[in-house]
């Protein structure tokens, strides 16, 4: 393939998957700006790979792999910050006017808040299954886990969300 063909294919890949990858990131890190950063870095790394002549059979899977690693890095970074940032309301700015915020407080933002409570692996499985619409088989392949493990994670994620509602959101 000539280099301009490589470029063309790459840009087509970007056009095809940028939204999906971005969306996946949003639901994994609950932060739009971060999600944008991660998406961009992911495509940069993809380019670095294809421009060096490496063959990629499955672009989407490859992107997910990159993105997952980036997200893990992000989680590690956050661990150093207050783990309970969301729970004890650190940094909650009294000055903001809630009336302006209300338009953005729709279901999707609520889901983001809830997703934050899930352990990373459950969350990944849940997002890939129900946001990205991947089958358990595909997820298993992309994450190098067995289908059973993925299935279990998805079910546990949903169970946890359900439990939160039942237990009035309090720690046992």
């Amino acid at each position, binding site marked *: 393939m000539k280099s301009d063909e490589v470029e063309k294919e790459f840009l087509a890949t*970007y056009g095809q998957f940028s939204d999906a990858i971005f969306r996946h990131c949003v639901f994994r890190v609950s932060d739009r700006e971060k999600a944008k950063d991660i*998406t961009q870095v992911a495509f940069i790394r993809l380019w670095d790979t294809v*421009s060096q002549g490496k063959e990629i059979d499955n*672009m989407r899977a490859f992107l997910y792999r990159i993105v997952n690693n980036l997200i893990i890095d992000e989680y590690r970074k956050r661990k150093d910050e207050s783990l309970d940032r*969301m729970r004890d*309301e650190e940094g909650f700015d009294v000055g903001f006017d809630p009336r302006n915020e209300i338009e953005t407080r729709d279901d999707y933002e609520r889901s983001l808040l809830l997703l934050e409570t899930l352990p990373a692996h459950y969350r990944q499985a849940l997002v890939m299954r129900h946001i*990205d619409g991947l089958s358990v088989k595909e997820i298993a392949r992309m994450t190098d886990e067995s289908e059973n493990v993925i299935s279990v994670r998805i079910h546990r994620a949903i169970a946890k969300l359900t439990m939160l509602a039942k237990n*009035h959101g309090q720690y046992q």
Partner: protein
Amino acid sequence: MDNINKQFKKGAKDVCLSVEEKAAMKHALLRHMEANPVRNGVLTRLHSRGANGIPSPFSVNNLRNKKTMPIFLIVGLLMSGSVSFAAENTVPGDILFPVKVHVNENVRSAIVVTPKAQAAWDVQLVERRLQEVEKLASHDKASPKAQEAAKRNLERYMERAKRDIEKFEDEDEGEHAVLTASQLADLLRAHEYVLVGLSLQGATATSTASVATSTMSVATTTTGVVASTTTAINPQMSKESFKDILKLLKESRKDAEKHHKELKHKFKVEDEDDDEHVTFTATTTASVGTTTALIFVPQIKHDDEDDNEESYREDSRKSEKGTSRKAGKRD
């Protein structure tokens, strides 16, 4: 199924890169590509479409695929009131606490229109923070970190209420200033009693039945109570943090009462109509502080009018019979 599709479309629509964002990212990529061009003479095979055979759930065709269950549906089902409702009783440290503040309280804030209503709501927010502090104070397994957070939140929200009052003052809205100030002062007073009661009782959050029996015995020995105030603090709770909170509350209450008085004087507003008052119920999950606190009431000095003293004394008589009490209500 249409409903699912609509929800799905809605969710998908909300979460994607805007045209500008996409273009900006593309530009950044192009710059990177220019700086790192393809190595010459290299053969690459790119499979960007079809090879993966993974259908995008967001393509039109797949909306007819009934197998995909969007998370919005799941969360929506969970959310149909129940999570928001469940969040209402949480405190800092609980998982759903952020939902309580960022979702529930936001929703309620949104329907507030007038500055007066906003101020009244801000005072109610202070009440919510007070309840959280009390709940944590009466729970023997509360983490000190959560208690710290609750205290900080309380401070922040009291500040906000104070600012509302000051704003009214600046804008010469005498009546609103006085009203809000009195609501705040009443609230703080009521909850100070609860916390004092908690410190007297030194009990953990067990059943109300056992609490009731112990408070009954306290009620009969009036002199005994005063002496025990300094010693009977909840042993599980850090003495320091409890003292801090009580101190904060006392000071804030004094401050608020002082301010209220000044405002009344400044704007020459007579005592407000009772039906304007929001009634604050000083209850906690443990219901510990209520009856014992009343015994202690006469020890707390107010420089307030006589009618306050009377109404509290009356209430205290009522409670010795074992009824629950509403604090802060003027008769």
